[in-house]
């Protein structure tokens, strides 16, 4: 909301500077988001009286005027406007003046005639879009008066945020009321003086409320005669300051009063109301209304409408109908000021897709007392500015009188909650200054009756907040609480996920975090099994490609690889930790499982002057899996995998305790093609939640051996398809306890190795915790190993 400071001053005297005021308002809860001076820079404009108008010797469409701005001589000004006459007073810019957009006025010849200034239309002063003629000012304003303050061009505008609970602050009066409480200065509302005709309003019209549950009050006033024309400059300036466009006096007045009081009004063209009467009712099935924005809306029976004798003429509290709209031809007005049920307004507004100033105000709750004031204020302004004739009396239907809530404030409770020591009388004074009445008071507590505009107040905490606001949040001390903890642990894996993250970063992987949105097409593109198509779908997604929650981390990472490769980042070693989502038939909420995915492509390490470059391969990926398994204490077995995105023969299923907890490997060429990737990509996807839940027992220390180890190697030729790991296991079996460790230190195919065979070299460490092993001991074990390898794998010693 935009607040004109000049306008605000009409309601309350403010004797502090703009920045201090802005700070105080912000600290009161009316946050100033920006301070603007919309007309800053306009200078050199004075009230001038036109003394003479002569034809231009060389141009039909121009005239030469003499305009008196209070200097020794009238200024000669060449002018193209036609709406003025001798004796009119107009805003006149002199040589050196600056207008909207920095336009500077210079002395120059216009078609051969010297001109030393310019008489201004409204748009040239930033007062609306009207360029139809000069602004004609009130003839009582003295010649030479500076137009900057006169027309409000020195105004300061606060752009403020009003919180949704404080709809009552969304008006000049609302802000003035709050400031009054804070500054201890009374606020005032403009006095309303209406001269009514002798004809009663009831003679012209009637109001019937058929839905009292949705309309607690409806006030109508009839103006049997008005003259629609342009609004005066001061009103235009204020509307513009508030961010509105002046239209015509009748419409501008309803907008002006809304800004002033916070209460929305609507003016109907009385002559266009069938039978000239108003019915407040629910819409009938099949009814349609064309609103003033020109759109047609089908209505439903949940929606409240204002109707005449036959058809809806407005969607109540939201927008008027086109057919009864006030236009230039309008001469009679039915003025509406009403209160509507906030929930009903909110629902209708949503259903129709119509968010208006009026609906915004009504949704936050209207003030039944302000309803009356606003009606009279508007009628008075119409009388003053639109030659309005006002019929006698109000058509005031008031089926549900408001209930003003009573709320108790215990002074101790306020101090306890705030951690402050605010005296009782001070607290009481704060609440009273906000318009609350005292119902009952004691030494320790006070019961207040809330004013009609405070819909947000329903309990003690609300009053305590008001006490705190007026006392000042900044005056409340800052203390540190002593914090106690419960035994229960709410996020048992959090610390270990954090350590894993650090570990993987240490292992050279970069962490990624993608949006958790996906779509079914991603599952197909990455050739994941159909089970992954069971996705959590969004009812109102941002777009098709973000229409579900992800069922796997893999598509997101492959998309990322495409993006990074296309941008020239050729090597990616990354991981992502995050949830995947799967609907559960029997539950409202889906299953959310924490997973980890790793992607490797390109170089195995950043290039270095002293290292050879090589590309990542399956064993780089397996190494990462081993790091993860070690971190969670999992003993993992790697089994051949034939699944979805992975290339058979270069992929594995990782089995822990009989459960497949991860899959990993080279991404299939068809998938890579679908992702427009032209280099090998390795992906790992693991159920991190299950891995973390393994929670193995603490590691137990094993005594460091006292006796020296004996180191032997063995190299054998075996068939290509014999897994090297099986040789290690056989060695362990054969040698028994004295084989402390066995490692594969070389796997070789090529020269000197027959086709279809490979050479595998194992390094064996023999050691006993009880004694020094003799050569015979070691040799015996070594022989057993060889024998086992020969018989079981048809191995030959190299």
């Amino acid at each position, binding site marked *: 909301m935009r607040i004109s400071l000049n306008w605000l001053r009409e309601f309350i005297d403010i004797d502090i500077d703009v920045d201090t005021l802005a700070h105080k308002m912000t*600290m009161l809860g009316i*946050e100033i*988001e*920006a301070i603007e001076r919309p007309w800053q820079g306009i200078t050199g404009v004075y009230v001038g009286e036109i003394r003479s108008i002569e034809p231009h010797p060389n141009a039909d469409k121009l005239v030469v005027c003499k305009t008196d701005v209070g200097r020794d001589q009238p200024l000669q000004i060449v002018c193209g406007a036609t709406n003025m006459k001798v004796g009119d007073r107009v805003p006149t810019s002199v040589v050196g003046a600056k207008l909207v957009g920095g336009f500077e006025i210079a002395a120059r010849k216009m078609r051969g005639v010297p001109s030393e200034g310019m008489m201004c239309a409204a748009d040239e002063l930033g007062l609306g879009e009207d360029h139809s003629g000069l602004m004609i000012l009130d003839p009582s304003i003295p010649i030479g008066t500076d137009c900057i303050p006169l027309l409000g061009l020195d105004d300061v505008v606060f752009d403020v945020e009003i*919180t*949704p609970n*404080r709809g009552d602050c969304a008006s000049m009066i609302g802000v003035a009321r709050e400031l009054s409480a804070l500054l201890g200065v009374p606020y005032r509302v403009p006095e309303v003086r209406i001269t009514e005709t002798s004809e009663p309003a009831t003679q012209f019209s009637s109001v019937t409320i058929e839905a009292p549950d949705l309309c607690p009050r409806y006030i109508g006033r009839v103006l049997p005669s008005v003259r629609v024309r342009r609004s005066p400059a001061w009103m235009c300036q204020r509307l513009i300051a508030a961010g509105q466009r002046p239209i015509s006096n009748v419409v501008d007045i309803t907008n002006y009063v809304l800004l002033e009081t916070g209460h929305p009004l609507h003016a109907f063209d009385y002559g266009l109301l069938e039978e000239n009467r108003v019915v407040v009712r629910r819409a009938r099935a099949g009814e349609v209304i064309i609103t003033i924005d020109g759109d047609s809306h089908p209505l439903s029976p949940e929606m409240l409408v204002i109707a005449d004798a036959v058809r809806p003429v407005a969607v109540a509290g939201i927008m008027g109908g086109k057919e009864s709209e006030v236009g230039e031809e309008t001469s009679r007005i039915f003025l509406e000021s009403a209160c509507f049920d906030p929930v009903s307004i*909110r629902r209708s507004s949503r259903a129709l897709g119509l968010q208006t100033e009026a609906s915004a105000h009504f*949704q*936050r709750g209207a003030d039944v007392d302000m309803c009356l004031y606003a009606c009279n204020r508007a009628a008075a302004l119409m009388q003053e500015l639109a030659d309005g004739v006002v019929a006698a009396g109000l058509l005031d239907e008031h089926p549900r009188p408001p209930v003003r809530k009573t709320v108790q404030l215990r002074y101790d409770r306020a101090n*306890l*909650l*705030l951690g*402050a020591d605010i005296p009782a009388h001070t607290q009481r004074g704060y609440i009273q200054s906000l318009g609350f009445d005292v119902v009952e008071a004691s030494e320790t507590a006070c019961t207040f009756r809330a004013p009609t505009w405070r819909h947000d107040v329903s309990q003690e*905490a609300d009053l305590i*907040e008001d006490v*705190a606001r007026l006392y000042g*949040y*900044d005056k*409340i001390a800052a203390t*540190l*609480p002593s*914090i*106690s*903890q*419960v035994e*229960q*642990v*709410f*996020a048992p894996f959090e610390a270990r996920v*954090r350590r894993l*993250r650090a570990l*993987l*970063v*240490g292992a*050279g*992987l*970069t*962490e*990624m*975090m*993608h*949006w958790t949105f996906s779509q079914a097409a991603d599952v197909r593109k990455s050739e994941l099994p159909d089970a992954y198509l069971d996705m*959590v779908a*969004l009812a*109102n*997604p941002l777009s098709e490609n973000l229409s579900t929650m992800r069922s796997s981390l893999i598509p997101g990472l492959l998309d*990322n690889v495409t*993006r990074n490769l296309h*941008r020239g*980042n050729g090597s*990616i070693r*990354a*991981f992502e930790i995050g*949830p995947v989502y799967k609907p559960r038939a029997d539950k*409202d*909420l889906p299953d*959310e499982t924490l997973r980890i995915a790793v992607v490797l492509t390109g170089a195995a390490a*950043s290039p270095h*002057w002293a290292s050879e470059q090589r590309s990542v391969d399956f064993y780089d990926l397996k190494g990462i899996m081993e790091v993860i398994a070690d971190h969670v204490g999992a003993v993992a077995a790697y089994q051949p995998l034939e699944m979805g995105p992975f290339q058979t023969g270069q992929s594995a299923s990782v089995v822990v305790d009989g459960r497949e907890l991860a899959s990993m490997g080279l991404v299939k060429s068809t998938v890579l093609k679908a992702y427009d990737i032209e280099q090998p990509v390795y992906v790992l996807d693991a159920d991190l939640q299950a891995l973390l839940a393994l929670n193995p027992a603490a590691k137990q220390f094993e005594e460091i051996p006292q006796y020296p180890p004996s180191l032997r190697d063995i190299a054998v030729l075996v068939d290509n398809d014999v897994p090297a790991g099986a040789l290690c296991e056989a060695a362990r079996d054969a040698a028994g306890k004295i084989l402390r460790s066995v490692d594969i230190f070389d796997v070789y195919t090529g020269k000197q190795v027959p086709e279809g065979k490979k050479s595998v070299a194992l390094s064996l460490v023999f050691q006993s915790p009880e004694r020094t092993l003799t050569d015979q001991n070691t040799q015996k074990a070594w022989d057993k190993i060889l024998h086992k390898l020969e018989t079981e794998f048809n191995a030959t010693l190299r």
Partner: protein
Amino acid sequence: MKDKLEEIRATALGAIGRAESLDALEQARVEFLGRKGGLTDVLRGLRDVSPEERPALGKLANEVKDAIANALDECKAALEGKEAEKRAQKDRVDLSLPGRKPALGHQHPISTVTEELLDIFLELGFQVATGPDVETEYYNFDSLNTPADHPARDSHDTFFVKPGVVLRTHTSPVQMRVMEQTHPPVAVVVPGRVYRVDLDASHSPMFWQVEGLLVDRGITFADLKGTLMLFVHRFFGADVKVRFRPHFFPFTEPSAEVDISCSVCKGKGCRVCKYQGWLEILGCGMVHPEVFRYANYDYETYTGYAFGMGVDRIAMLRHAISSIGHLYENDLRFLEQF
């Protein structure tokens, strides 16, 4: 014989003095002290000397031997020093060449900042709690005193899964989930992804929040101020100014927003702070009595505070990240800067 010994001494010391390499020195050692060397010959000749002369000559012979041996040692040490220096000269490293740095990866700035935020509160005695991304309307709104048709729901552009089920719009539902599971005291911090239907240069439909909840006897607004001021000073720096400004959240009362003096312009006013000198970084307040009612906590016995902050915004401020989009695009040229 005495002359011979003196001559050997003179020749040997001369030769040692002239030796320029360890090889030459070794040659000298063999020549004068070796088994076939000059001195050995002389010593052998001692057998033929008369017993009267033998002690004096023997002594002299030993003196000569020691002198030569000492000279050899000294010279050897000197030559070795020279050799080592030569080697060191040859083995000099190029200080400008990059080191063989272990291939470290990069942690995502969101998770780094989240961890740092949490750590401050963990140290104070809070523990971490988490909740689901896909949440019921009950936990996301109703139990947080935001019933259907509450105007506050308008400011949360909510993703719906089906009636009653949403993507959580804030981490606050975890407040209720935790309170349902335990009795006070409650002291938790909640990191998590949250979702709003919003996408432009400054909004991402998914972003991160960190929430805090403290409930116990006698927790005050002053405690809230103290806790968050400590947090701001630890995280943003001791010289940062903090202000608490009244605001509205349905689930706290009194409520506040917390601003810090703009880190870019130091409070003078700039584009980042919209010329206000202040940056809003979190929302907070005292737990609303209605929320306690939903949690079955006695409002008269217990009080509490809650706060919530946007991790993305804080990360962007701290690292001068120009657009929120960078955080979720995961371009390596972005990630590798952290």
